[in-house]
């Protein structure tokens, strides 16, 4: 096969090689792995069970159709049943399991992949539709297999790249493993929750790769380039060599930066900058501590909160937060209340507008209270701070503070120990909050600036739209002016602002943020070393001058050019 470069959108940086693991649909991720001798016949047995189960399902369907007088459509089911007996399909799968010692899922996908390719070569529209019959059967077999053996990435014996039309955030969480080295999706955007998780897991990801699944054979070696936003199928020797070199270079500079991680966080003109880390899962807190990071600027709690598919029970939440706080030792941890309500689950589909963030919490007070109680109950374990998400009016803020006060009163009445001084802050991530942050200042202890949403809502961008990705640009004059405005409104109030959006993770954008006056940044764990290196290499007074120039510029292109001239 000839090398093919597929273009997508870079969603999580880094480069990885691995074997494709295809997720047929968001609910069905199959894992491919090689077998020990002793496992081979068990796999064949599982396959036979799955075939038998599929056959029973189809016969039942056929019987129902016949009695409902839709008799004609039963011949299509005949075709499906015949596929299940087809030696070209079934025998080859069994042969593959035995000869190549691969698991049934892999063998099914590998054999069907070859057949799909043959079908795609035939120029016959009707026949190409028949591909659907085989796809249907493959899906059924895989589903039925799954009920015999739930997949886990731990079974994988080599590096894998998960490829799917859509990958749900929960799937990534479930499959978290060192064996998962890359993610590729046909839909989605770098702003999606899936992308956020991939970045926090440090897994190179490319999204919005049109038509990557058709023809992709499970197990095939692919390259994911999360820096350039491309996926390479059937890479040539030459390409592989290039990428190996690049991975080596990245590894080297990573090690160099890792050494700089422990150096003081000051600019060349000796100005101290607070560099904190964002985390999305409780388990990430350990690496934050080992980086000698000064704070956890944002703990996005929704992923842990819903990791079991439904909200966690209060005691489990308390255990989570106690773990985070005690592992962080004395470091302040900004625990953000769950920010949900937006349709983050199915990416690429129409975003269903609905209350989110604080509005959602105020409409679902039982959940809100549960989480607040858990945070307070865990608060004696460390230095907790509460952050309210997606605040847009002072009224909401007032209502939220009443809930907080009520939760505290009830805990006191019950004699539960908690830290009464837990500071409360708000996210500035709506244009409304950006305009009124000075008015909110007297009501809160600190601010977190969420650049992802702020940019999105300021520039009127739809998160799920692929076309709009070019628009999502931090160097838009409106964004720079808005950021400056927030800084200028908050500065006289004496309250701190930590910038915790993705913007701060890009060293160049982070330098511009420093120039705009911000002195506290919080970035994902993976980006921490390079932002630290940037901070130690710049002169703050020069950045201030640069920012002043940028604020007068008229277009994004002009701003970007100037920024790269000075900083790149």
């Amino acid at each position, binding site marked *: 096969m000839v090398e093919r470069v597929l273009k997508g959108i870079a969603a999580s940086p880094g480069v990885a090689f691995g074997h494709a693991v295809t997720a047929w649909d968001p609910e069905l991720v199959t894992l491919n792995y090689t077998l020990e001798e002793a496992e081979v016949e068990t796999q064949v047995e599982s396959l036979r069970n799955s075939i038998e189960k599929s056959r029973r399902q189809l016969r039942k369907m056929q019987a129902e159709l016949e009695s409902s007088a839709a008799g004609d459509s039963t*011949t*299509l089911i*005949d*075709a499906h049943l*015949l*596929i299940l*007996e*087809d*030696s*070209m*399909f079934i025998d080859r799968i069994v042969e593959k399991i035995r000869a190549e010692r691969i698991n049934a899922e892999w063998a099914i996908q590998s054999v069907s992949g070859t*057949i799909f390719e*043959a*079908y795609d070569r*035939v120029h*016959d529209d*009707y*026949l190409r539709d*028949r591909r659907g*019959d*085989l796809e249907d059967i493959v899906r059924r077999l895989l589903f039925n297999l799954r009920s015999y053996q739930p997949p886990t990435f731990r079974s994988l014996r080599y590096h894998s790249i998960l490829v799917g039309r859509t990958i749900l955030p929960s799937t990534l969480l479930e499959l978290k493993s060192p064996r998962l080295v890359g993610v590729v999706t046909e839909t989605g955007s770098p702003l999606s929750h899936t992308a956020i998780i991939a970045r926090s897991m440090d897994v190179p990801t490319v999204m919005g790769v049109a038509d990557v699944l058709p023809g992709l054979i499970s197990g095939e070696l692919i390259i994911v380039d999360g820096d350039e936003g491309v996926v390479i199928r059937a890479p040539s020797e030459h390409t592989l060599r290039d990428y190996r070199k690049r991975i080596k270079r990245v590894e080297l500079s990573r090690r160099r930066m890792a050494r700089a991680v422990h150096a003081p966080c000051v600019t060349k003109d000796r100005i101290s900058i607070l560099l904190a880390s964002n985390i999305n899962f409780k388990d990430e807190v350990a690496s934050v501590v080992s980086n000698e990071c000064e704070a956890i600027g944002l703990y996005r709690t929704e992923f842990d909160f819903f990791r079991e598919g439904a909200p966690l029970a209060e005691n489990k939440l308390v255990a989570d937060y106690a773990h985070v706080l005690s592992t962080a030792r004395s470091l302040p941890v900004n625990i953000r209340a769950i920010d949900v309500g937006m349709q983050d689950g199915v990416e690429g589909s129409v975003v269903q507008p609905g209350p989110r963030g604080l509005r959602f919490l105020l409409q679902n007070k039982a959940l809100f209270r549960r989480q607040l109680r858990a945070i307070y109950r865990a608060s004696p374990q460390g230095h907790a701070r509460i952050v309210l998400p997606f605040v847009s009016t002072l009224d909401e803020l007032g209502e939220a503070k009443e809930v907080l006060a009520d939760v505290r009163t009830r805990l006191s009445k019950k004699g539960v120990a908690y830290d009464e001084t837990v500071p409360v802050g708000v996210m500035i991530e709506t244009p409304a909050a950006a305009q009124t942050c000075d008015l909110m200042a007297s009501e809160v202890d600190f601010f977190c600036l969420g650049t992802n949403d702020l940019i999105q809502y300021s520039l009127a961008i739809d998160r799920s739209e692929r076309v709009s990705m070019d628009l999502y640009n931090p160097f838009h004059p409106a964004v720079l002016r808005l950021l400056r405005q927030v800084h200028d409104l908050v500065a006289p109030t004496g309250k701190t602002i930590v910038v915790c959006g993705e913007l701060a993770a890009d060293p160049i954008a982070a330098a511009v943020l420093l120039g705009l006056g911000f002195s506290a940044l919080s970035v994902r764990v993976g980006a921490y070393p390079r932002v630290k290196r940037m901070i130690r290499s710049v002169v703050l007074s020069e950045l201030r001058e640069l920012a002043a120039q940028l604020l007068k510029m008229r277009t994004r292109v002009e701003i970007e050019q100037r920024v790269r001239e000075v900083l790149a």
Partner: protein
Amino acid sequence: MTAREVVIGHRLGLHARASAQLVQLSGKFRSDIRIARSDRGADQAADARSILAILLLAAGYGTRVEVRADGEDEQEAVRAICDYLEGSVGTVGNG
């Protein structure tokens, strides 16, 4: 071995339904049965019991194919299958 050439007589050719019936018919014989398009090599012959292979022939109406059978009932098999492919048996003309 018995072999015979025949022209597909089904209006829509060997598509899903006709293929399914062909595979079922082939299953009634003990011989090894293969069908090849006359415009391609015999090495691309399809196993008449494999619906996927038969579909891949993409043999439309008017395509010339060769049916070969090898086994104890090869003559009956070739006859029955050729009759079927020509569209002279059964009520499956719509493919």
